[in-house]
């Protein structure tokens, strides 16, 4: 899905926990996330801390989208 959207000229950041799969499939901008069942969360943290971690990840994703790359990159 990432590739088809990117083929249309829109940059995509793939946020996922299994980076090797993302790499094999061919996403170009990849950000590793926390865990498979909760990529943007951490139930072991307090709700406040969890949200901070989530926000940091989304900020990282936005940064990746604004970064020029010439090959597959993990941020």
């Amino acid at each position, binding site marked *: 899905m990432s590739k088809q959207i990117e083929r249309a000229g*829109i940059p995509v950041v793939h946020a996922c926990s299994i980076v090797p799969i993302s790499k094999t499939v061919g996403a170009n901008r990849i950000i590793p996330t926390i865990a498979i069942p909760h990529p943007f969360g951490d139930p072991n943290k307090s709700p406040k801390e969890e949200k901070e971690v989530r926000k940091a990840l*989304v900020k990282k994703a936005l940064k990746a989208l604004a970064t020029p790359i010439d090959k*597959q990159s993990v941020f």
Partner: protein
Amino acid sequence: MEHRYRVIHCLNQFFGGMGGEEKAYQPPQLFEGARGPGMLLENLFPNIQVAATLVVGDNYLADKTERALREILALLTPWYAAESADKPKFLLAGPAFNAGRYGIACGAICQMVQKEFSIPAVTAMYPQNPAVIEYKKNVFIVRAGKDVMDMEEALRNMAVLGIKQLNGEELDPDRDHYIPHGQRKNYFAEKTGASRAIDMLLRKLAGKQIHTECTMPLFDRVEPAPPVRDMASARLALVTSGGIVPRGNPDRIEAASASRFGTYSLNGLSRFSSETHQTAHGGYDPTFANDDPNRILPLDVVRELEAEGAFGSLHDSYYATVGNGTSVANADRYGFEIAKLLLADGVQAVILTST
């Protein structure tokens, strides 16, 4: 008397001796006997006789596929549906080597003929021929070289594979030189998977060649898109393969091998909650996602960042499917459809989340 195998052979206008690109719109025509590569086939296999040769122009079939196939069916029916004992028993098409249109013709004809007449049909192509992806699941495609240099070998393998099928023999993609259909077959092995894996590892450590029992599919690549120039004014969209859907899963997206994606409104939503949304994904423990769907698709913080001006605006819908054994072909299609919707709304950046 030695058993004779009668076959119908399909060729394009070029190999059928009708002409080059100027004859590419040639409608299908049937000729008695062998033509071009069919003559080589008869020389290689004295027990094979080409009963007839079907010739069709590359463009005619690629442009008007349905019509061409109907016409081909009408031409072939009197032969394959005949009562005669020596009617042709199978069909060979090509080899098409790396020719795209020819490959599509060979694949489409083989697929139709085996379905309509329940007879074996075999073609041959270069593995990267674009028609391979389309037809390898249903059609026996012998691995051939890029061009006619490989004619003899490809014809041999096609004929042997066709005759083996006629005789009901056991087939194997490696031994019989065809592109695997991508189906798994159960069999009884002498050693367990664990000891076969150890054997393989030991061979690998010893620097010997190993053959995997589970070939990974090959994936294509796409050039990285240029970055977003001005994030503060950019329109952002959210997509997920993590299965976040409105409660009740209104589109009934399957928990595995999803056959669709959903388009869901974000209008007036500042965050997902366990009251409004859930996961439909069957490939991970849903507890954490159902407690707080923002853990899969982080809408709550995306809205905060939107308010803070970290990006321009959020697209009105998000798109979701379940990435759990979903075929690459289906995922490609979802991505393609979603891209069209995003372009129509001027979206400039996408966050795609996966579990």
